């Protein structure tokens, strides 16, 4: 069947521009099913843009996205999205459970209300991210790490085979980082595909199977061991890599 043999995500020729300035240029990417991939690059490289354009959240000048071999429009239900937590207005009058329950809205129609079943799924997802005790907490009172875990739980509720996360480790505390990594491991064990925009080069080899090096263009992509080299990092980051390159070199056995 097409689904099994196709990679989870295929991106072809994706180009995004803001008023004629290319932000993403001609991106080709294949994310194999079951892979946990990091997207790294300097500021302004287009990492968030790539995820958003792939999800159809911002318009692309050119390019095509396929999900399990099917066109994106048909396959969008297979992807769960975790946006950057800073892009949300957290001073919104609602509680944690309510936000996580929003993840179930996709399966309800326009007019059906979430019921007990939906809320139970939400609770289970909260337990997974170690936020079970915070069900009724107003989201305005959450710390950064807690916010991140809530957004992750919301995506987990969708039970989608593919997850795309935008900078989930940005500015979170240690317990949150541990919780997220635990979830990534679990997802990987279950054969789910995870794509993460990541800012911390040091943890790339530890957390991820493969990596995409991005700087407006795709520099290189593939298994960490092969691709995460000093040479590639220098190409991506333009020579300001130093210590991290040494670590990368050490990890890849070079």
């Amino acid at each position, binding site marked *: 069947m097409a689904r099994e043999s196709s990679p989870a995500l295929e991106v072809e020729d994706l180009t995004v521009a803001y008023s004629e300035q290319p932000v993403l240029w001609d991106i080709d990417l294949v994310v194999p099913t079951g892979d946990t991939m990091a997207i790294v690059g300097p500021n302004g490289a287009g990492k968030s843009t790539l995820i958003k354009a792939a999800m159809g*959240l911002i318009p692309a000048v050119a390019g095509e996205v396929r999900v399990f071999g099917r066109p994106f429009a048909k396959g*969008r239900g297979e*992807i769960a999205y975790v*946006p950057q937590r800073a892009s949300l207005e957290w001073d919104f009058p*609602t509680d944690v459970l309510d936000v996580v329950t*929003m993840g179930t809205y996709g399966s309800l129609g326009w007019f059906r209300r979430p019921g007990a079943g939906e809320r139970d799924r939400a609770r289970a997802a909260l337990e997974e991210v170690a936020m079970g005790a915070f069900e009724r907490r107003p989201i305005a009172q959450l710390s950064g790490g807690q916010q991140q875990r809530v957004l992750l739980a*919301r995506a987990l509720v969708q039970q989608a085979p593919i997850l795309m996360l935008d900078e989930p480790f940005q500015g979170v505390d240690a317990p949150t980082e541990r919780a997220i990594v635990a979830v990534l491991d679990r997802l990987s064990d279950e054969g789910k595909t995870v794509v993460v925009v990541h800012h911390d080069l040091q943890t790339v080899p530890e957390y991820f199977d493969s990596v995409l090096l991005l700087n407006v263009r795709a520099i290189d992509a593939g298994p960490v061991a092969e691709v995460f080299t000093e040479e590639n990092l220098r190409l991506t980051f333009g020579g300001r890599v130093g210590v991290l390159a040494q670590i990368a070199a050490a990890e890849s056995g070079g």
Partner: protein
Amino acid sequence: MELFSDYTLRVVALGSGVLGAAAGALGSFAYLRRQSLVGDALSHAALPGIAVAFLLTGSKAPLTIMLGAALAGWLATLAVGLVVRRSRVPYDSALGMSLAVFFGIGLVLLTVIQKRPDAAQAGLESFLFGQAASLLREDVVAMSALGAACLLLLGLLWKEFKLLSFDSEFASSLGRSVGRLDGLFTLLLVIAVVIGLRTVGVVLMSAMVVAPAAAARQLTDRLAPMVALATAIGVFSGVTGAVLSSLIPRLPTGPTIVLVLSSVVAISLVFAPRRGLLWRWISLGRLAPSAALDPVLMHLYALAQQHPGEPDHGHGIAVLRTMSPAGVDLDQVLENLRSRGLVERVDEGLWAPTAIGRREAERHLASQNEAAS
């Protein structure tokens, strides 16, 4: 309640109440989406719509007027969208421009229309500030029908609007058409605005959309209660305004409604628990010890530690200033600490912690170390 046995009051109160409910409910979502100005723009844009509707049809029927107003409001939002997409103009600037331009066109049209012999009869000027006391049965019927439709749709689409307001990107990722939802929301808002035109008029309508939501937000942290409260506040203001205007002669109803509403907002802003100004002012006095004051005490303690055996060795404010963030009013903080017996002024401009102050500092440090381990 024999007050309400009077026909006129019943009519005016009903109309004002319906307006308050619709404006409060929809205004809540506009508020949460940071789009309160849209209500203002829509109501000002309604003026040329009313004028054109009259010019084209010569009719003053409520539905004709409302249709004209609604279409003009719709056009205004389209214009704003166009400007934002095609230029670098930020959203609220575009809204402000649209508001001013449409309203200006409306005023020009009024001046043109005033020369027509049937113009004064149409009473288009009355749409500026409303003429609530002249509400007829046919007006209130139309208003109630529209208001009920509005609230019903809001109820049906509750979770969609909640999602749209909190995280429209996520909504998009679920496959929801954000454009369509946004359009629907704007339509409901337009209807709410149009309901209010006869009662409070074009200029004051924006208050009805913004104020109940603002007041309600201070009072609760959950969405359903907030919208319910905003609706209730809207209804309360509308009805109370009508009642007051019926008790005091020569008191125009529309402005009175808005005044009542403003009072409610003011009270809410000041007295709301947790978010209110009064509350925060009081609790700052209580919470302060662990918040802004301790750092200065801790700085003094740290400085004192560098001079063991010299408890009276004071340090100047200048030194403290380099250790504190920019906005801290050191004089006030030190005065407060001194009145609590935690620091003393050992010499002109030199400060040191007292014995009590030192103990407090040590206790604080100990508890911090405990928490960290």
